[in-house]
């Protein structure tokens, strides 16, 4: 088990602040946070490259660590094969075995054709795959991954994510995976730690993290497009003349957030148990690859994701009148 105990580190303008964290053996832990949150710095401390000003990091000593840097750190004086084989060569494996293992890993990662290439001729994505291969071939007990898919295009990214997950399932290494991509965090993590400005503001299952953001900032970051603030009185928050029913009873100043896919559009008012039902006017629809993002004015602008199918079936031209419905339980409330 990896244990961080009140780790504090000052970088002048920026601090990692009394961060405590436990990651179980074999767990897939994702550290999720926006750019500049301190993810890389935290990972560097876990890898022992930086020493905390105070606090302790236990459980990583004498473990085989597979460290993959955001900027790859491929050895420029070796070709791709030599890079991947590096750890095995160090371990003095026999040549035949090294060859087989490198071939196998690079096949898996789709870089088998690059093995004799010089590092500086690789594209960003190719470099990242080589870096992954170099760590993977060592079958480490703990992976420390710094945005391992950030430079990859979506299909390669999905492919590699799948591969990392399979690897995790098979060998059960502990994985600490740093990313700023919440889709990736959701898809991969057993648990997610949410890092904002050097503070771990949430540490929970993906479900909890996504459905119960702890602050307005977190909600924004997690892709909640409908975030409002106001005063809650008797479960009602009034904005621009409409009353939204919330699970919270009372609050002087609160924020609420509603996921754009927790909202239903309908031609007529829906008869249902959902407390929040408002009539509005379509502002416009933005086509995304998997869905259409509708903007509806109900006094405030609401973002609502619908399928292409619904988009085709409903009269959703700009200006059309439409009903909007969402459950009280879909309304997340936080005080800051």
């Amino acid at each position, binding site marked *: 088990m990896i244990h961080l105990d009140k780790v504090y580190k000052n970088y002048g303008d920026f601090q990692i602040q009394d961060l405590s964290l436990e990651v179980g053996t074999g767990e897939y832990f994702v550290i999720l946070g926006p750019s500049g949150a301190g993810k890389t710095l935290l990972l560097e401390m876990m*890898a022992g490259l930086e020493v905390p000003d105070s606090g302790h990091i236990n459980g990583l000593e004498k473990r*085989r660590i597979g460290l993959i840097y955001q900027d790859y750190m491929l050895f*420029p*004086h070796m070709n791709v094969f030599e890079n991947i084989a590096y*750890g095995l060569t*160090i371990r003095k494996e026999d040549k035949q075995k090294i060859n087989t293992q490198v071939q196998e890993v690079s096949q898996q990662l789709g870089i088998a054709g690059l093995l004799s290439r010089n590092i500086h001729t690789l594209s960003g994505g190719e470099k990242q795959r080589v870096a992954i291969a170099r760590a993977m071939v060592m079958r480490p007990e703990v992976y420390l991954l710094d945005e391992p898919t950030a430079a990859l295009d979506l299909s390669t990214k999905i492919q590699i994510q799948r591969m990392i997950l399979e690897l995790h399932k098979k060998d059960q290494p502990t994985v600490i995976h740093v990313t700023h991509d919440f889709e990736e965090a959701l898809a991969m993590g057993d648990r997610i730690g949410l890092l904002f400005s050097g503070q771990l503001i949430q540490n929970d299952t993906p479900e909890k993290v996504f459905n119960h953001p702890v602050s307005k900032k977190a909600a924004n970051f997690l892709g909640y497009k409908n975030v409002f603030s106001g005063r809650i009185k008797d479960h009602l928050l009034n904005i621009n003349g409409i009353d939204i029913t919330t699970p919270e009873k009372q609050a002087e100043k609160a924020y609420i957030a509603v996921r754009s896919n927790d909202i239903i559009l309908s031609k007529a008012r829906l008869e249902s148990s959902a407390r929040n039902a408002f009539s509005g006017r379509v502002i416009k629809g933005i086509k995304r690859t998997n869905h259409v993002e509708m903007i509806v004015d109900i006094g405030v602008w609401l973002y609502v994701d619908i399928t292409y199918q619904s988009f085709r079936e409903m009269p959703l031209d700009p200006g059309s009148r439409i009903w909007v419905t969402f459950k009280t339980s879909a309304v997340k409330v936080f005080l800051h």
Partner: protein
Amino acid sequence: MKAKPVFYFLGTLLILFIVIPVFRMIFSVTPQEAGSALMEKELMGSVLLTLRASLWATLIALVLGIPLSFILARHHFFGKKVIEGLIDIPVVIPHTAAGIALLMVWGRESVFTKITGISIPGTEAAVSIGMLFVSLPFLINSVKEGFKMIDVRYEKTAVSLGASPWKAFTSVSLPMAKKSIISGSIMMWARGISEFGAVVILAYHPMTAPVLIFERFQNFGLDYAAPATVVLILITLVIFVILRAVGDKQ
């Protein structure tokens, strides 16, 4: 980016500043004279000695100096600036003074000789010691800069892949710094070859090429010193260009 014509102009000035004296000297020697100088045993012997002694100095400096450069590039400790200053002293110290200082330490009356019974002055070892002293800083500084340029995380990555610190050093830091090491070695070697002041005090014999050239000039004048000089310049120039070409290929 295209350099402006004025850059070419200024650069050419500088090249002429170096090349004109060198060529005047080279062309003051007829090919016959140069040829017979090349055949001459004494001269070639001392040229070889010079190249060899400087090579020894460079090798010693590599073995002892690479670790030092690495420490200076990677570690921060109290008094580091002072140590870096000390390493630069041989650059500023007048060569004659350097020779005298070395003689005090390596001479007949030195502790070294008293303990070991080995007398250094006047041997090839003495030549190497003189060269080592005056040209060492050029190697150390070059290699140090080379190590500084390597992101320490490359070494950390190697360690995370199972390498011992020593192995990480030999398999990552060293090859990554290769270019600086090669170019530093070439500079040091060259600087050693040219040394006269310090070497002549430590070892008049065996005679290095600069000492021989000096002696010829003193005894017989320019006409006799020039062919030897030209031969030395040409031989080292050829080796230089080859070494640099090899170094750049790496």
